[in-house]
């Protein structure tokens, strides 16, 4: 019989306000095997832990139950505490009477009754706990960063600087990401490329960084410290080693009608191309879908003009398999599609553009050479309207429920830059709220209003209608004056909501990392572990985790790198001892378990067994504890009930069931 101690936490008033803690203690004390039960205001505090430790020692407890917050919060704390007191850490069970009880119920009687039942279930389970020993696994001292935007570059640089090798995988032909597309950055109006490209160069030149561009992650297996990742290097059709980056091929390419992704399809590019002048690597790729040689077999001009002989039409995709200890997801964002927002006439008029498109128009390397002009007729606009929250904070299901966070600031930036360069252009901004928390952000917005005379109207735009003369009628409302507003504009700019890059969902499945309803990756804890995924060894950097601006992205990238460095600095990791094991006497070697195991952790051995006194050899399932992650799929599949899971055994779970139904 176990000697069990029960410790009930008040959590200040978080638990005690709705659960009568003393009654839980009394009820627990009456359960079989419970030799010690007590309450304390903060069990997780040092004093609380000291109480637990001394009870373990003084009463010789063989198992403890802590009735407190979620095991996701403090299970590790109490396990360590038990271990310090000489009790096996896996003889600890948590009854979650905060998140699953006191915080969701108002009625004290009801909540107390439920807390007693939850405590009873945990006591019933701990009776059947067995001491477990964690194993160890090795750490591959190399990190993978998926995404080569500012988030990925910064994370990679920080990890590389600490002395660990890092690989960056970027699906585009160049690293740089969204930041490379921006013209200026708020709130300092730095030129985006001027601050980004030195970082790109630094990453490319760093001895610890390898960059795979035009590449995608194809498959991920393994676990923290020991991931194996297959990377598909798309055929570039250009030899990276031979190419000198002279650009002659791009100049001569006769296929020039492909929409230029980098310029948000506002211009066109050649079929052999580098996305932008400062591209890293400065090696073009052939877009086989649009290349005349690949489409018709005729042409081959690029190969003829290439003095270095770098063009190779026979290249094929290559799969590289690498081992990593940690994986960082930095897949960034895109703007949402506007097909559900017909009222803004985005599809009807070339002069209704998104803010990211304006960013390209304002950029000297963009489709208009940096001149502000209407895309329909090339004329300079006189009247510009900016519409905020297009698809952000959207409650009708057409857009996103969240705030995209960056739009208020970049719109202030655009308005300010336009008024500065073209003082004759009138700028009006329709907004729901102006949100400018951030260092020097509100001052920046005030400058746009006070110094540059940007006209801010609180209100939403109901309709943008193209007029016969090519101008646009913007009908909205002014909520402060309570009046309808109508402006005839030459150009309308939509602050379009941002969403995670479409690759994030597929990647999350591959990494078994959780993702929220908006496809942003979920943190291990929203406040305390914001750069880690709940999946060990997977880290989050940049907008893949949630909307954020450049300074925030860079800080998060640094935080993410620190976590990765912390992992890579370890020589070995303790593994989860809650693994499956098969009962030799019951197993008949049928292979059902091995077929469902996602980790290939089950193999078979011929073993000598004693069947009711008859000695013989039999095929028996054997679980590799280093590979088993403890999902339990095999336990249910096993037809003879030979497979069981340590820490969540059949008997333990049934004991919980029985306690709840008692």
């Amino acid at each position: 019989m176990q000697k069990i101690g029960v410790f009930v936490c008040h959590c200040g008033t978080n638990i005690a306000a709705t659960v009568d803690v003393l009654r839980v203690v009394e009820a627990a004390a009456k359960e079989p095997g419970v030799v010690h039960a007590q309450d304390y205001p903060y069990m997780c505090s040092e004093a609380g832990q000291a109480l637990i430790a001394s009870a373990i020692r003084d009463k010789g407890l063989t198992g403890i139950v802590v009735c407190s917050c979620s095991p996701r919060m403090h299970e590790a704390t109490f396990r360590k505490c038990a271990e310090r007191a000489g009790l096996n850490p896996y003889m600890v069970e948590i009854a979650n009477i905060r998140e699953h009880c006191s915080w969701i119920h108002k009625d004290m009687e009801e909540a107390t009754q439920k807390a007693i039942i939850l405590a009873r279930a945990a006591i019933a389970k701990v009776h059947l706990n067995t001491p477990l020993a964690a194993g160890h696994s090795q750490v591959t001292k190399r990190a993978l960063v998926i995404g080569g935007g500012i988030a990925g570059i910064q994370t990679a640089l920080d990890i590389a600087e600490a002395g660990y090798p890092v690989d960056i995988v970027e699906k585009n032909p160049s690293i740089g990401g969204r930041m490379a597309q921006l013209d200026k950055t708020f709130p300092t109006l730095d030129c985006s490329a001027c601050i980004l490209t030195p970082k790109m160069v630094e990453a490319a030149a760093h001895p610890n960084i390898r960059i795979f561009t035009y590449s995608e992650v194809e498959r991920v297996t393994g676990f923290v410290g020991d991931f194996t990742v297959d990377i598909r290097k798309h055929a570039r059709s250009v030899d990276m080693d031979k190419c000198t980056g002279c650009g002659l091929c791009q100049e001569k390419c006769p296929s020039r009608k492909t929409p230029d992704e980098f310029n948000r399809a506002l211009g066109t590019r050649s079929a052999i191309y580098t996305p932008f002048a400062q591209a890293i690597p400065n090696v073009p790729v052939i877009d086989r879908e649009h290349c005349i040689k690949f489409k018709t077999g005729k042409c081959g001009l690029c190969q003829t003009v290439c003095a270095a002989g770098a063009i190779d039409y026979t290249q094929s995709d290559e799969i590289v398999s690498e081992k990593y200890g940690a994986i960082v997801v930095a897949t960034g964002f895109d703007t949402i599609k506007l097909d559900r927002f017909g009222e803004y006439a985005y599809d009807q008029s070339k002069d209704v553009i998104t803010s990211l498109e304006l960013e390209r128009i304002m950029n000297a390397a963009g489709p208009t050479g940096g001149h502000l002009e209407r895309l329909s007729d090339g004329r300079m606009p006189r009247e510009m309207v900016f519409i905020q929250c297009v698809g952000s904070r959207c409650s009708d299901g057409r857009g996103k429920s969240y705030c995209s966070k960056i739009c208020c600031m970049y719109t202030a930036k655009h308005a300010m830059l336009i008024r500065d360069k073209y003082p004759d252009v009138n700028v009006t901004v329709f907004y729901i709220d102006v949100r400018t928390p951030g260092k020097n952000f509100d001052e920046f917005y005030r400058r746009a209003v006070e110094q540059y005379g940007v006209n801010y109207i609180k209100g939403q735009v109901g309709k943008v209608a193209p007029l016969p003369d090519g101008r646009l009628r913007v009908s909205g409302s002014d909520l402060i004056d309570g009046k309808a507003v109508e402006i005839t504009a030459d150009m309308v700019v939509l602050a379009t909501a941002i969403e995670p890059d479409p690759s994030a969902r597929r990647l999350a499945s591959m990494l078994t990392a959780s993702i929220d309803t908006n496809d942003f990756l979920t943190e291990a804890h929203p406040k305390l572990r914001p750069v880690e995924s709940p999946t060990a060894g997977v880290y989050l950097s940049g907008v893949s985790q949630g909307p954020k601006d450049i300074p925030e992205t860079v800080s998060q990238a640094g935080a993410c790198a620190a976590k990765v460095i912390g992992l890579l600095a370890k020589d070995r990791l303790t593994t989860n001892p809650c693994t499956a094991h098969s009962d030799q006497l019951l197993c008949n070697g049928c292979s059902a378990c091995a077929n469902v195991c996602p980790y290939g952790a089950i193999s078979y051995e011929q073993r000598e067994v004693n069947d009711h006194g008859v000695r013989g050899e039999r095929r028996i399932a054997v679980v590799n504890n280093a590979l088993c992650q403890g999902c339990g799929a095999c336990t249910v599949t096993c037809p003879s009930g030979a497979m069981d899971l340590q820490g969540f055994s059949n008997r333990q779970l049934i004991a919980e069931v029985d306690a709840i139904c008692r």
Partner: protein
Amino acid sequence: MSIDDRDFRPVIAAFCCNWCSYAGADLAGSSRMKYPAEVKIIRVPCSCRVNPMFILRTFEKGADGVILCGCHPGDCHYSTGNYYTRRRMASLISLMEFVGLERGRVRVEWVSAAEGAKFAETMNEFVEHIRALGKNTRLEDLRCKN
């Protein structure tokens, strides 16, 4: 509805996978959402750890409803666990209906770690449904009664 029905407090067990649904339940709690106290959560590493036998056992011991929550298909922490759950539970639920258990006493829901609101809504709905069905008498093991 008779007075007895209104006083009926069903016994409900919710098996929740550690990575998505248990975290979703935590989020429901930390967001102070409300759902009935009848729901008692049992933590399992993955929804695929739940043997249909556990569900039968729960009914045998007098539960009125059992709900199993896991990660959304495709999002399983263990890659494929919830696919097994989906198949197993489809068979189990079909069998339960075959033997005459009222429809809806066993339910499977996918709740992610970010869906605290969905967790609370699901539990509210489920408890409401079980209250409407009344006490589970068809699968209760009378031998368990004193």
